[in-house]
């Protein structure tokens, strides 16, 4: 019950933030120079045609009226039309959303899969050569730009070895796994480094705590001490990190999806901004903002389950 009121209160705080986001986005995109009708009709279209299309789309109404229409539609579940594709945004959204979610979750899993063993190796061999090696190794991805890493992975694994496709999303789950492996790895890259470093120091700190001393004194073998006590406690700060990272990953998908020609939300956002596809940009920004709010909320709610010492204030 306590948890529920807490969750509801956090949700209540999130709503005004979401509303503010819609206003900001609406104003920002209208402030940008450039008009969707002109962008879509092209250089050769007549001024009359541009005016007619603007009228048809209601873009000649005063700004507050346009916002009113947008909010009214939003409340009734109408996300508007993609001006560029002449298709309801709601019809295009689910497919795109699945691609991005798949990518983000996949990249997170890869990060964990790679970072956890590395951190354990480093922490258990503190200041000896395996630790030095891991620390050196994970500095590399931190220093490499995502865009470049993506192209590099493409050249090596898609072009040289041909293990993975160079572009696209594929059909069916196993093909998605294959098609999204390189993009997910690229997206995972910087986070893996951050995760490994943080987990390493967290493991080292935890090893020094009294409850670990106690576990050792109980006579537990080192492996059991590590996995039963140290790792569990050390994972706690990592949860926050993952939460923060999820929001970043959604943003990072913009670059990745463009490099790997993935039909997700990120690449769609870029195209829509460039062609001033207003409704799409508004919907996607709102979706990104809601996702970020949701992730934060979830992180807060997960915490007490992992560590009974955390109580809700």
């Amino acid at each position, binding site marked *: 019950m306590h948890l529920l009121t807490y969750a509801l209160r956090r949700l209540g705080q999130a709503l005004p933030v979401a509303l503010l986001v819609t206003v900001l986005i609406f104003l920002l995109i209208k402030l940008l120079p450039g008009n969707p009708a*002109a962008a879509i009709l*092209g250089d050769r279209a007549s001024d009359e045609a541009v005016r007619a299309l603007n009228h048809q789309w209601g873009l000649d109404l005063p700004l507050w009226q346009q916002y009113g229409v947008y909010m009214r539609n939003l409340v009734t579940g109408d996300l508007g039309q993609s001006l560029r594709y*002449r298709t309801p945004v709601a019809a295009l959204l689910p497919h795109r959303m699945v691609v991005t979610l798949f990518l983000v979750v996949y990249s997170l899993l*890869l990060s964990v*899969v790679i970072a956890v063993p590395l951190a354990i190796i480093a922490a258990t061999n503190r200041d000896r050569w395996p630790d030095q090696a891991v620390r050196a190794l994970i500095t590399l991805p931190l220093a490499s730009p995502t865009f470049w890493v993506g192209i590099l992975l493409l050249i090596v694994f898609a072009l040289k070895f041909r293990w993975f496709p160079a572009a*696209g999303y594929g059909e069916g789950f196993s093909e998605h796994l294959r098609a999204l492996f390189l993009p997910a790895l690229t997206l995972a890259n910087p986070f893996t480094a951050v995760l490994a470093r943080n987990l390493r120091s967290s493991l080292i700190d935890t090893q020094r705590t009294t409850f670990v001393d106690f576990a050792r004194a109980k006579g537990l073998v080192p492996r059991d001490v590590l996995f039963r006590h140290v790792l569990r406690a050390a994972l706690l700060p990592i949860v926050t990190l993952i939460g923060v990272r999820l929001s970043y990953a959604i943003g990072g998908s913009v670059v990745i999806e463009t490099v790997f020609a993935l039909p997700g939300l990120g690449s*769609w956002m870029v195209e829509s901004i*460039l062609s001033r596809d207003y409704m799409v940009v508004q919907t996607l920004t709102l979706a990104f903002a809601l996702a970020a709010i949701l992730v934060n909320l979830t992180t807060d709610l997960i915490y007490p389950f992992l560590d009974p010492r955390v109580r809700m204030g």
Partner: protein
Amino acid sequence: MRATYRVVALVLAAGLGLLGLGPVPQNASAQQFKKVINFGVNRGAENLDPVTMDANPDLWAFMQIYQQLVRVNVKGDGFVPDLAERWTTSADGKTWTFFLRRDSRFSTGDPVTSSDVVWSLRRAHDLKDGPWQWALEDVQDISAKDDHTVVITLKEPWAPFLADISLFSNSILSEKVFKNAAQEQISNKPVGSGPWMLTDWKKGEELVMKANPYYFEKGLPKTPELHIKYIPDDNARIIAVQSGNVDGIDYPPFSRVAELKRDPRLDMQLNPSTAVAHLSLNTREAPFDNVKFRQALATAIDRYAIVRAVCFGYCTAATTFLPMTTPFFNKSSKGYVYDTAKAQQLLKESGVKTPVTVKVLFWANNPVHQSTAVVVKAMWSKIGVNLDLEPLDRAAATQRYRSNQFQIYITGWTNDIPDPSQLGAYELGFTQSQSYHSGYHSKEMDDLLEQGQREMNTDKRRDIYYRIQDLALKDSPLIWLYYAPYTIAISKKMTGFVQMATGPWIFKDVAVAQ
């Protein structure tokens, strides 16, 4: 507490499993030719209605689906029959009769009849403010004489009529399917009689087409399916064709052409096009209202250096406003010859005081425009003209340009018909676009353009277009820079691929070996 250990082990195993997925084994029972042609493009289609769209990706896609009465030949200098197997012109040049072939069918199985043609052409003619209305501007009436004969009468003799009727906007749609259809349906679900039919369109991702079983050329298309995939990033598109993910790609950048030519798996094509790159000058305002100043700028440009720097040598310096492949292109025209001393002399005569600063507007994310601006800046600095670069994102730049708020704009042109009339009217005539937004307005030019459209005698017409080319150079409302080829990279396993000089690809004869 064992759980944690197991989770770690599981995650590790899953990770290794994923890594081990590796290559998918080749299908042992594979046939000789692929069932699907995969083609990667740099821009996705948005609107497949021939009448209301205005972008190459749209028309190149629906040209696979629709037929016209007549079609431009591959070289782009003549016409071949399409839906009409033959046609006649009355002695006064005002009545055109088209005889339809009797074996054409839409992908629905319905035969293509005169009423489909009349309905489609009337729609193209009647739509207000469409980008392609000029093509049927002089049409008085379109009517069906019988099921397979269409008569089109003109208000007056019109030299480029056959070219205009071949334009993609005059594609023949199924009247039965579209008569009461909403615009959305025409834009999203094309139904035509061409070699391919659209079966799925994942917007911003790919167009899936299947062979039209009712297409009149028996045995074509050779491959059952065509997938046009949107891969916007140049690097990714090139890797996709090099790795065999797709069988061909459009627009590899000039900077990569040499490397792709060396790739033994690929056929790197530089196809003749009608692309002309130019600078539009806003002649409404000083100092661009001064013709000597414009001439000085045109003379101070070393087009060969631009071809080297921007196109890596794969383009040709422009000598007139017309593309080289267009009929009546004046081969003997020298254009502007690079001469700094002469440019300085012209600048002096213009009375414009140097140093003078002017601004060039261009698309920020376009590497070709970017390098053009940089090279021109260096050239003009030698005559005391300082060029400020003003890169803007595409939508913002287009709006500024459309509302005439620019001094110089980097842009270009491709012909849609094998005739100089379209380009002439658009680029140098005031009525259609204020001479490509330059604001150039010359009575002499407008008269010549008018004559060029009316004159039915080929020799006299040629003479008129030669005069137009000379006058355009003299007045220089635009500075023509170079003619660019289309770049296409296809797998050597692909045969039968053709790209027309007007741009569209032809896939019906394409086969891809396994």
